């Protein structure tokens, strides 16, 4: 009986000794994750706006900008990632806090118009440039080409007309 208890105790001790380092490592990792910043203020500042001064936060100098920065610092200290912080800022300040507006409604024009203008410009150029070049080449050819000789029938008719004037 005593031997049995001793064996059970030894097995339990062995299990504790084997699992303890893993448990310790897991606990340390959890603590490290909570304390390690996963985003930087500089990185976030470039993507958000000071909502009262309507300037990028990275250049804004106002009491609201300072308050926003302090709030972001707090979120960074809590170990939140950049996307979590951006979501949190939207929940607190609305979508106006985002440097790039969300792609829906009227904001879509921000994403659609520039490429559309680019494509339209390219299409106009693609249409007009070959025509301009053709016209320029034709004009150059016309200037450089020798005077066409008349066919024999026309030459004969011209001679007849001229001879009438010459008398």
């Amino acid at each position, binding site marked *: 009986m005593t031997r049995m208890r001793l064996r059970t105790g030894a097995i339990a001790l062995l299990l504790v000794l084997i699992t303890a380092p893993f448990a310790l490592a897991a606990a340390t990792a959890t603590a490290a994750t909570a304390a390690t910043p996963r985003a930087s203020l500089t990185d976030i500042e470039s993507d958000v706006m000071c*909502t*009262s001064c309507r300037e990028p936060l990275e250049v804004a100098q106002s*009491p*609201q900008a*300072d*308050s*926003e920065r302090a*709030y972001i610092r707090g979120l960074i200290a809590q170990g939140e990632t950049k996307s979590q912080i951006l979501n949190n800022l939207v*929940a*607190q*300040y*609305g*979508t*106006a806090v985002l440097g790039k507006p969300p792609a829906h409604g*009227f904001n879509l*024009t921000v994403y659609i*118009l520039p490429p559309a*203008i680019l494509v*339209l410009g390219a299409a*106009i150029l693609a249409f*007009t440039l070959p025509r301009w070049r053709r016209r320029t080449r034709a004009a150059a050819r016309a200037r450089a080409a020798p005077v066409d000789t008349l066919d024999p029938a026309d030459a004969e008719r011209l001679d007849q007309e001229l001879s009438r004037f010459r008398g």
Partner: protein
Amino acid sequence: MPPRKLAYYSPIMRRFAIPAIALAVAVALLALLAFGVAHQGTSSSIDAQVARGDYPAAPGARVQLPILGSSGHESLADFRGKVVVINVFASWCGPCVAEAPILEQEQRQLLKHDATVLGVAYLDNSSDSEQFVQQHGITYPVVRDVSGNFVKGFGATGVPETYVINRQGRVVALRRFQLAGNWLEQTMTRILAQSA
């Protein structure tokens, strides 16, 4: 080889086609810009209407706003029948700090007349707003306008701003920027006397 036949365009068409397209695109862009600016909602027409005595209905009366420090929501319509002093504020705003005791003092008087101050936290995060409310011992209800859509209906461009809504739900007075002198006291005395 016979000469290639080129498509015929009249000289007028050729001369004006590209400028016309460019003009049409420019006009379309300007129209789009005008539309965008017009829908920013920062109209100051409420000021003119109130000044004329042509009191407009309070905008966004049914907009549900989250109550500060709670999961509930409240709208201006919930205060129907009461005189409501809406104060738009933010914790980081110096003039708002200066106004807080004036508004709290006014709230004690308003409660006796079936009226209330309604704080609207704007351009602020909830934790800072809650801290502001605690620090200044604010007892009146406070809601948050995260998107700014509610206050923009009043033409708000910043903080602080104060609007007075009568028992019929109409904007009867407003003040942009900080409350000065005894504007609030005088205005409320007049409005409460009218609606008594």
